[in-house]
């Protein structure tokens, strides 16, 4: 039992699970699940009680029983007590103060990650303001490599997302040229396919591989299909760079995605076996998002942000190149408006980074959420300041296949201009070499010798 006296009232919380849920900043998904605080004062009281909980308590009290859930088992079984030692004596509140202090250097914060559990970082995020989530995350540098180097301080990469509602190859190629000409695509060129048919998937992989090889682009491709389909594609000799999978923070939500930890291991081993990385072997791409567990009725009465952090415990077992929280895609019954989406994006980025993951964010919303591009500008700027590893780049921010709005190629230029963020170094050098950018990384005037422009003319002919 956790108790606190606040504002003349005594509040009691029966479990760590309840305390975490009631301490979470307000969001519609937790109300829908019936786990949210019932008043604003109870929410703050829960934060106060949570701030006094020793971090060690999180190792003694599982929010989902060990016997019932393989993600809980993964978290407990892989906990590194040596890495945890520097903060083992702290409460959640003391941990926040330490993280934001001068003594928490990037080196110390990064070294801590194997000793932290998702519930610990979720807890500390709940008592942080948005600005704390920015500065805390900025200290956790996570660098990953496949054909280029992503996550260096002062850098930000972009996933080029050239989706088309019928997987039309010319339509996709047109969006790829557009994105590359705007200097995007260093995180990955990644297609959400309309079809999950193996032949169609293989065609898209071959097409992207052809573009990457023909123009010698230091980047990687991905078709975002189920891990088992990608394993089949690799077995048939398709040019797979990254293995994609959506994951969640409980065994039940992963089961609703048709995926087990064994599938993910098999997928990674398949991609490693074909050795397509040149500067590194981080070959997994995961997507997550708050609310997926409730949507699958697999949340065990936990709040959606804590479950989301548990998804990162799954991700970190597989040394991914990219982890993307698709924050506003799920809809207003989970994140109602711009305020809730902004908060969730900052939380996810912070929690993932502290757990040692290469976090990116699909800064996005659907048309039935109370949000617009101005809200996305705020989240983009804050994540840029927080050192986000990558964002999405979609023509005009309008995904015509998935019917939602994200960030555009122009938005990437904006945040680079505002914050001085550079692209992955290998990709930046390539852009300058073929004449897309000048030597300072700014877009150059269109010159006739640019091979991408020649390619565009050939496509159009």
């Amino acid at each position, binding site marked *: 039992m956790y108790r606190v006296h606040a504002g003349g009232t005594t509040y009691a919380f029966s479990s760590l699970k309840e305390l975490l849920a009631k301490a979470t900043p307000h969001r*519609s998904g937790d*109300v*829908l699940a019936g786990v949210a605080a019932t008043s604003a004062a109870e929410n703050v009281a829960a934060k106060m009680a949570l701030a006094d909980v020793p971090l060690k308590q999180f190792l003694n009290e599982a929010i989902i029983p060990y016997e019932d859930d393989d993600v809980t088992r993964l978290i407990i079984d892989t906990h590194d007590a040596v890495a945890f030692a520097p903060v083992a004596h702290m409460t959640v509140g003391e941990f926040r103060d330490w993280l934001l202090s001068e003594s928490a250097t990037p080196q110390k914060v990064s070294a801590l990650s194997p000793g932290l559990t998702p519930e610990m970082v979720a807890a500390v995020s709940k008592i942080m303001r948005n600005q704390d989530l920015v500065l805390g995350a900025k200290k956790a540098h996570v660098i990953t490599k496949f054909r280029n180097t992503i996550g260096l301080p002062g850098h930000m990469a972009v996933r080029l997302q*050239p*989706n*088309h*509602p019928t997987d*039309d190859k*010319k*339509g*996709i*190629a*047109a*969006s790829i*040229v*557009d994105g590359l*000409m*705007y200097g995007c695509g260093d995180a990955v060129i990644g297609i959400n396919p309309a079809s999950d048919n193996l032949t169609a998937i293989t065609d898209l992989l071959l097409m992207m591989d052809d573009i990457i090889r023909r123009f010698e682009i230091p980047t990687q491709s991905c078709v975002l299909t189920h891990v088992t389909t990608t394993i089949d594609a690799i077995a048939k000799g398709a040019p797979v760079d990254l293995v994609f999978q959506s994951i969640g923070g409980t065994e039940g939500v992963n089961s609703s995605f048709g995926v087990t930890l064994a599938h993910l291991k098999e997928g990674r081993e398949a991609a490693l076996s074909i050795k397509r990385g040149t500067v590194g072997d981080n070959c997994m791409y995961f997507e997550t998002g708050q609310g997926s567990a409730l949507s699958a009725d697999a949340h065990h009465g936990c709040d959606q942000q804590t479950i989301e952090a548990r998804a990162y415990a799954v991700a970190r077992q597989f040394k991914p190149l990219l982890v993307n929280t698709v924050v506003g895609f799920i809809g*207003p*019954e989970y994140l*109602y408006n711009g305020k809730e989406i902004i908060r969730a994006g900052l939380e996810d980025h912070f929690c993932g980074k502290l757990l040692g993951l290469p976090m990116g964010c699909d800064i996005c919303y*659907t*048309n*039935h959420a109370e949000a*617009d*591009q101005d809200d996305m500008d705020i989240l983009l700027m804050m994540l840029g300041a927080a050192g986000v590893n990558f964002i999405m780049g*979609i*023509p*005009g*921010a*309008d995904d*015509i296949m998935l*019917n*939602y*709005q994200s960030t*555009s190629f*122009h938005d990437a*230029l*904006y945040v*680079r*201009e505002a914050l001085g963020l550079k692209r992955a170094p290998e990709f930046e050098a390539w852009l300058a070499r073929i004449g897309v950018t000048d030597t300072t990384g700014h*877009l150059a*005037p*269109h010159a006739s010798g640019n091979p991408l*422009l020649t390619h*565009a*003319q050939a*496509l*159009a002919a």
Partner: protein
Amino acid sequence: MTTMTEDPWANLKRFTDARIGLGRSGAAMPTREVLNFALSHAMARDAVTTPIDWTPIEKGLSALGLSTLRIASAAGDRSEYLRRPDLGRRLSDASREALVRASEIEAAKPDLVILVGDGLSSLGVAANTLAYMSAFMPYVVKAGWKLSPVLLADDSRVALGDEAGEILGGKAVLVLIGERPGLSSPDSLGVYLTFSPRVGIKDADRNCISNIRQRGLSYDEGTFKTAWLLREAFRRGLTGVNLKDESQFLIEGEPGPELIG
């Protein structure tokens, strides 16, 4: 004189509806593109938030010889509807009573209950319902399917049809509903078919035909698929993942399961 940088590959636009070749003003989108995007978003937002006017739909359905009944979900207003999908799947108390009364008046149970719901796009319902129903009615007449009054439902999710269909005793329920609007498709109608409707049925037990609108799936094609699925649902006693839409074999002139079976 313009200070905007044009994109020389803008001729690739003919291969995709994606917003490519927009040009730029420094790092920003050009003025016309910022405003075009804002207009598309505004139309999608309006499609979600504008209450539907059922009057013209009632008149049009009446001209097709169909009676109607207005009902509502348990969601109190649009904001609650968006936050609480569970309430959009349940009838309001008044509507439940009205449907019970309607079922007591009718002697014979209907083959098909049709529910038209605003869903996430009142624009999609207003723009497509009458054209779809006009194209669908000849199939109903030809097959001799008995219909209940067409239910016109406010603040509805797809599963609202399960409770309504169960109360009316329909063999199947057909839900026509406004789909979540995309930036380039704010006016899309979705059609969901569920055999033996009852509360608690899973989404995997439905068949869906999506993107019915003037610039999407045509009314002829949409109603052809609906009628094919409905015949198969009645013949095989199921809908959902085990009923694959094979109607394209008929369109392409090859023998479909219906002709074989």
